Structure formats: C-alpha cells, structure tokens
C-alpha cells in the first residue's frame, strides 16, 4: 500500500531562491491490487508527483509511505526491490535484446558482478511472459515498435519483483488498441500479483473506463481521489477538464465538443443506426432530443433518411448526404 501523507512536491530552493511548490497538502492511498490512475490537465505536476513517489526527487514536506514506512527511510537498494518505475525516457540502447533489457531489472537482486542465476533467468522469462512480450525476447529493443517497447519496459519493471510499480505516461505515443491493451495488462497485473500500480496518463476517457481508483489533480492543485464514477458524479471531472469548447458527458463517459447551436434533433432508427445518426448530427451542431417536440426529426425508412425541418421534408439516400445537409440546412 502506498500512502501520501500531507505531501508537498516541487523543487527545493537553491542559493536563496525560494522553493517552487508544484502540489501541496496531498493525502491519498493507492491500494495493492488496484489500478490507480493519475490524471489531470497538462502542467499540473503529475510527473513531479510520480518522480517524488519513485524517490527520484525529495518531497518538500510530508511523507510517502510504503506499507507504513517512509520511502526516504528505505535504503536505495531495498527500495529498488520494492518499487519499480517506468519513466517517459524513450531512447533505448542499441545492441540489447528485449531479454537483456528485462534482465537489467534484476539489478537490485543480483550480486557484485550482476551475473544472473537460473532463478533470475526464470524471473526474467516470467516477466516477459506476464507483460505479453515473450515473443519479443530475442529481438533488439531498438527495432521494436512503441507499443512493444512499452511492454518490454513494463517487463523490466516486473523483473524487479516490486510491490509497487509506478508508470509515467506509458500510453503516450501508442495507438488506441495498444493503449487499451497496456492498461488492461496493468490492471490484470495489479489483480493477480496484488501490486500497487500507479499510472499517469493523458487518456482520460480510457482512465475513467479502466481505473479502479482515480487520483485527479485539479487545476487548483488539490488531489481528488475516488472511483471514476464518484468523481464523475460529484462533478470533479467536469470542473477540471471542461473548457469553452468541450464538456464531459457523464452518462457516456466521453468528452463532447460544444457548438450545438442548431437546435434539437429527434432520431428514429433501428439498431446501431440510431446512436450513429445522433453522433453525426451532434457533430454538425444538433443536440439529440429524448422525445418530441424537436426542431429536426430524422427517420430511417429502411431505404432512405427523411429529415423534417420547419414543415419541409427532405429525402437522402446516403448518410453522407444527410450529414452535409444537416451542417447547413437549406431547401
């Protein structure tokens, strides 16, 4: 269990200059077995917080407690056996295979020369397998795709056999399937190995769908903790991320662009065609209506779309034609 107690993070003052506090008064808990996702608008100090949790920079005030003992009181080598980190640094050394890179994670467990024993090799093989990177083991890391590299770096962290893994933006630069797969992998690892997993990400929608607990850094510099649903219900998500052009739709869990100035639209269509029509109309500036009356009604007749606006009915045979018309409705 990783506990933050009245924690302040930032950069200490040097030579008379005052220290720069990035976040202060943080209280939170990341439990074993939970996927804890750290989110917040850009520049609020997510990375600084993670670096402090990892012991890469000292806390300005307060404590980070690992299973009850302050991380600053734990010897560096011992801490490395309990906390593993995946950083944002992306350039990997050449002439190193994925297996060798994963083997580097055994560093805190090996002896003076760093020689891996049979047991170490077994852990490396397990870590590669657990991270879904077993098939990459003998490939040079410089030849891997971004998603594959992230898996190997996760395997390296697992090879440390830690109680807690901290990951800074592991899904950046990944395509959508790889992001979902990586987050799913992290959640599975948290469950199966009873790990504390803290991940920071920019991918808010994915975080809200997959996280067990959210740590939300709000623009005021406070840390809000809870399940994704709690934070959505109490408005913390909207307060932090809504902008002039964007708002968080609580029910669907996605962000929608504003600009719905065209009026309300009522859609009648069967199956998946209904929501898709609504999405297309929303993009063109209409707000879906739950029932009549509505400014615009669109009906799928089975072979064409009929759109009724101001008493006039227009027929479109393709969805594209309807969408184009809906942007600038005319005769």
């Amino acid at each position: 269990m990783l506990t933050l107690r009245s924690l302040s993070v930032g950069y200490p003052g040097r030579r008379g200059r005052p220290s720069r506090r990035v976040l202060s008064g943080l209280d939170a808990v990341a439990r074993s077995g939970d996927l804890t996702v750290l989110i917040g608008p850009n520049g609020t100090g997510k990375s600084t917080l993670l670096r402090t949790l990892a012991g890469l920079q000292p806390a300005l005030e307060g404590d980070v407690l690992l299973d009850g003992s302050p991380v600053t009181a734990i010897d560096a080598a011992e801490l490395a056996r309990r906390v593993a980190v995946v950083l944002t640094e992306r350039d990997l050394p050449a002439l190193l295979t994925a297996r060798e890179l994963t083997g580097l994670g055994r560093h805190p467990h090996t002896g003076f020369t760093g020689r891996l024993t049979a047991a170490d090799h077994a852990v490396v093989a397990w870590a590669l397998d657990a991270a879904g990177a077993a098939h990459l083991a003998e490939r040079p890391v410089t030849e891997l795709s971004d998603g594959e590299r992230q898996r190997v770096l996760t395997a390296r962290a697992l090879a440390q056999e830690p109680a807690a893994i901290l990951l800074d933006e592991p899904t950046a630069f990944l395509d959508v399937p790889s992001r979902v797969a990586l987050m799913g992998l992290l959640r599975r690892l948290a469950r199966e190995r009873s790990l504390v997993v803290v991940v920071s990400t920019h991918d808010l929608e994915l975080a809200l769908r997959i996280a067990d607990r959210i740590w939300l850094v709000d623009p005021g510099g406070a840390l809000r903790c809870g399940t994704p649903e709690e934070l959505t219900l109490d408005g913390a998500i909207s307060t932090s991320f809504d902008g002039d052009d964007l708002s968080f739709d609580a029910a669907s869990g996605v962000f929608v662009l504003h600009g719905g100035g065209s009026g309300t639209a009522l859609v009648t269509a069967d199956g998946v065609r209904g929501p898709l029509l609504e999405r297309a109309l929303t993009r063109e500036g209409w707000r879906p209506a739950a029932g009549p009356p509505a400014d615009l009604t669109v009906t799928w007749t089975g072979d064409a779309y009929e759109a009724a606006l101001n008493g006039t009915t227009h027929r479109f045979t393709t969805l594209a034609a309807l969408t184009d018309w809906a942007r600038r409705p005319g005769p």
Partner: protein
Amino acid sequence: MTDPGSGPAARRRVTVLVGLAAAVVVAFVLAVALGSTPMPLDRAVLALLRADAADPGDEVIIWTVRLPRAVTALLAGAALSVAGVQMQTLFRNPLAEPYILGVSSGASLGVALVVTGWGGLAGAFTGGIAGLGRAGVVVAASGGAAAVLGLVLVLSRRVRSVVTLLVIGVMVGSATASIITLLLAYSDAQRAQQYLGWSLGSYAGTTWGDLALFAPVCGTALVAALAGVKPLNALLLGEGYARTMGVRVRRVRTVTLLTASVLAGSVTAYCGPVAFLGLAVPHMAKLLLGTADHRVLLPGAVLLGAAVSLACCVATQAPGSGSVLPLNAVTTVLGAPVVITILLRSRTARSGWAV
C-alpha cells in the same frame, strides 16, 4: 542478460573473445619481432629467452627497446579502450571518448608549460629546460591531467545533467588548447617542435623504470573499471532508471570519471595524447560482440584495444625503412577507414544508436 554459454549469441561472444585473445598474442609477438632494425624471428626468440646462443646486441634491442614498447602499447590500448567504453556509457553519447573532458588537454598544457619554459617558474627540476628530461615530461603531463580531472570532478558534483557536464568538459578542453596555442606562439621554434613531437604520441619512450609505475597504475585502474560493470549496465537506460534500480548515481559517476581519467591520464603522461583508440575501439568491440552488456564488452574492449594498439605499434616501425612513423598518424590514418568500413557494414550502426 542472456545466460553465458548458451544460445548462438553467447557462443558467438565466446568465439569472438577467444579470437581477440589470440590476436593479442600474435600482435604482441609481432611487436617484439618486428622493428626498425631487421632481425630474423629465430634470433629474436633466442634473444627474448636470453639463451646462451643469443647475440648480445639482439638481446639489448629486444629487452630494452622492443619489449617495454610492446608492453606499453598493450597497456595503453587496453586502458584507452576501457576508458572509452566507460565514457560512452556514462554520457550515453557515441562521440564521447577518454579525452572528451579535457584530460589530455590538461596533460598537454602541463607539458607545453614545461617545454616552453614557463614551468621553470614552478619547479627546480625543469631548470635545464633545453634538455628536458623524461621525468619532467611525465610529471608535467600527470600534473596537468590531474588538475583538469580535479576541476571536472568538482564541477560534476555541482552539475546534475551529464550533458551539461559533457559540454563543460569540452569547453575546458578548448580553453586549454587555446592556452597551449598561445604558449607555443610566443616560444622559440625549437621548443615548439619539441612539444609537437610529444603531442604526436609514442610508445617508444617508456623504459622499464617507467613501466614500474605505469603498469601498476594502469592495472589497478583497469581492475577498478572491470569491477564497475554492474552499475555501468544499469546506466545503459539512463541515470533516471539507474537510480530507480538502486544505483547511487553520483558515486558511480565520480568513480567512473576517476578511473577513466586515471587510465587516460597515465597513458598520456607516458605516451603523449594517443588519438583515436579510445573513440574507435569501443564501437568496434560493440559491433564485434553484438552486445552492449558490459560484462562482455569491457573484457572485449581490453583485448581488442590491446590488439589494435599493438598493431599500430608494429605499423609505426615501417619495417625495413629504418624510420619511425608518428603514432597518432598511424592510429588515425590506418584506423579511420577500418572503422568507417565496419560502421557501414553494420545494420545497427547504419540505423544509428544511442550509446
């Protein structure tokens, strides 16, 4: 790291290391057997063994000229190559080399000061400057190298980023080089020539007396470097990752800079600033062994560095001509095409690598 002794990659590494060890032996024999005075191999062997039938003249040549020269070449090559690997990993930069932080510039400044007469203000031993002694040069070079090393170590305590440290090191080197240029511009031509001769590098000047100090210093630093393979491996991923794996990065940085600089500084003191080996051999070793794992790479660099250095030593003798070529001209002119060819043939190198 892959289990040593299993798999095709591991077998290749063992083969390469054995091959390199054999190359060192062959190159050492050649360095003793060949020289500016022609001598058949059988006579050279007899002289080397100090057999009763050996020619006394041959014995003198072998034991006072060629053997110390070959041992110096072997040590210098191993030292510069290991220091090169250390620097390239520490700075995560393929252009880093043992002299990048100005160690050789410091040594050069020390020698330039003594040669041009300015050093005479500082010590009595330089009194008879015109016939500057061997000891004077060695002491001056060591002093200069140690001064720059001290400066860099002090700065490294204050600088967080290795990149900044690298830039500072290059600055110190450039500033030192400029001072040397100034010194030479205001000294007479003969003394400038004397300095120039030193700066071309040579394995030929070392005596057994020199080796009595050079060999233990170099050997100790080599052992210290080989003992540091584990943290160097952790540094492959950068200082951030190394710290999260329990490495005390500041201490490792200081120890690595210290050993690399002692290696480079001692070579410079006895042989002058030997160019190129420290930059090229680490790349060649990495590509030959196909790994960045320092547990394989550092021993490989020791062997390859010694072999290449001995080969250069043989080449300087220009067999038969009776003249001796400047060492730095040989290492660079012969070495650069070889390295460029290796780089062009390697897929890894063509696609670029970070370390």
